[in-house]
C-alpha cells in the first residue's frame, strides 16, 4: 500500500527545499487554499454589492430577474456540477495510476467547461441584442421597477468575473492534459492536477451561489 521510496529517497519531482514528496504535496495544497481564500474575498465584494442593491431595490430585483432564462441557468448548473465530478474523478484515476482514464476525464471536464461558456455566450448575446445592459448602455424598456440597469450591472459583473475564471480554468486544464500526455504525472506525483481540481471546484462553488441569487429570486 504505502511506498517507502517516496518518503526516504528524493524523487525527481521533489524540489530541493522540500524534505519529501508528502511535504511538497501538503505545502502546494495549502498554498492553493490560501489563493482560494483571496478568491472567496474577491468574489465576496461583488456578493456584498449584490446584497446592498437587492436590499435597496427588492421589487426591481424580483421583476427584472424574470428576464433571465432559468432553463439556461439550470442547464449551466448541471454542466458545472458534472464537470466538477469529472475533475474529481480524473484525480482519482491518476491516484490509481491510470493515465488513459485521467486524460479522458480531463478532456470531458474541458468539454463541459466549453459547453458552459457557449450557453453563457447565448445568454449574453441575447441581452446585448435587447439592450439589457449595465449602466448607461441599458436601453431595454420592458422591465418594471426603477433603475433596472442596476440589476444588470450586478449580473454582468458577477457572471463576467465568473466567466473569466472559467476561461482561466480551461487554460489550466488544457495545461494539465498536455502534462499528463507527456507522462509528467504518476500515482506518486499528481500535485498540479490536484491543485487545478481545487481551483475548478471553487469556480463551481461560486456558481452554486450565483445561480439561485440571480436566476431564482423567489
Amino acid at each position, binding site marked *: 500500500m504505502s511506498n517507502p521510496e517516496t518518503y526516504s529517497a528524493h524523487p525527481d519531482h521533489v524540489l530541493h527545499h522540500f524534505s519529501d514528496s508528502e511535504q511538497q504535496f501538503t505545502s502546494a495544497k*495549502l498554498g492553493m*487554499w490560501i489563493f482560494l*481564500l483571496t478568491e472567496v*474575498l474577491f468574489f465576496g465584494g461583488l456578493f456584498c454589492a449584490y446584497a446592498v442593491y437587492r436590499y435597496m431595490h427588492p421589487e426591481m430585483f424580483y421583476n427584472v430577474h424574470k428576464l433571465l432564462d432559468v432553463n439556461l441557468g439550470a442547464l449551466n448548473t448541471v454542466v458545472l456540477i458534472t464537470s466538477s465530478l469529472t475533475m474529481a474523478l480524473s484525480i482519482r484515476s491518476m491516484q*490509481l495510476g491510470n493515465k488513459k482514464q485521467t486524460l479522458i476525464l480531463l478532456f470531458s471536464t474541458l468539454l463541459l467547461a466549453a459547453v458552459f461558456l457557449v450557453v453563457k455566450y447565448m445568454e449574453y448575446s441575447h441581452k446585448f441584442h435587447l439592450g439589457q445592459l449595465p449602466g448607461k448602455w441599458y436601453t431595454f424598456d420592458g422591465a418594471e421597477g426603477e433603475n433596472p440597469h442596476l440589476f444588470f450591472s450586478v449580473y454582468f459583473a458577477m457572471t463576467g468575473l465568473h466567466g473569466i475564471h472559467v476561461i482561466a480554468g480551461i487554460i489550466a486544464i488544457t495545461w494539465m492534459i498536455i502534462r499528463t500526455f507527456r507522462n509528467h504525472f504518476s*500515482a506518486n506525483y499528481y500535485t498540479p492536477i490536484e491543485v487545478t481540481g481545487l481551483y475548478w471546484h471553487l469556480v463551481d462553488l461560486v456558481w452554486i451561489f450565483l445561480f*439561485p441569487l440571480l436566476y431564482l429570486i423567489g
Partner: protein
Amino acid sequence: MAESNISHHHIVPLKIYLAVAAALLVLTAITVAVSFVHLGSLNIVIALLIAGIKASLVLLFFMHLRYEWNMNAVTLMVAVVFLVIFITFTMFDIAERGDTSPEMRNSINKNAAIYDASGKPLKATEHGEHADSAAAGAQHEEPVAAPDSSGH
C-alpha cells in the same frame, strides 16, 4: 498493476463521488422547484440554505476537506468568517442609515425649522442670499433647490 502504481494518499471510493454528484443534482432540482413557490422572505433563506449544503458537499468530498489536514479547512473558514463580517456590517450600515437623499439635495440649514414664541414656524430658515426669497412667501414651504453655500 504494480503496487507502487497506486497513490499512498487517501483514494475516495467511486461510489462516494457519484453519490455526491447525484445529491448535488437533486438539490439543484429542489432549489429550482422551491423558487417557484412564493414564501416571501423565506425564499432567500431556503435558497441560501440549499446552496450552503451543496457548497459543503463540494468542499468536503470533491475538495477532500473531509479526508485531510485541518489547516486547509481553517484557511477556508478564515475567508468565510471575514466575508460574513464584511457583508453583515455593510448591511447594518445600509439598513440603519435611512434615506439620506433629502439631506444630500438640501442642506440641513435650509431644512431647519425655527419657531417663534407662540409656536408658529418662521420661514427665516435660510442664510445669506436666500433670505429675501424666504421672506417673499410665508406659505411657500418648499426648499429651493440651490447650490449649497453654507459649505456643508
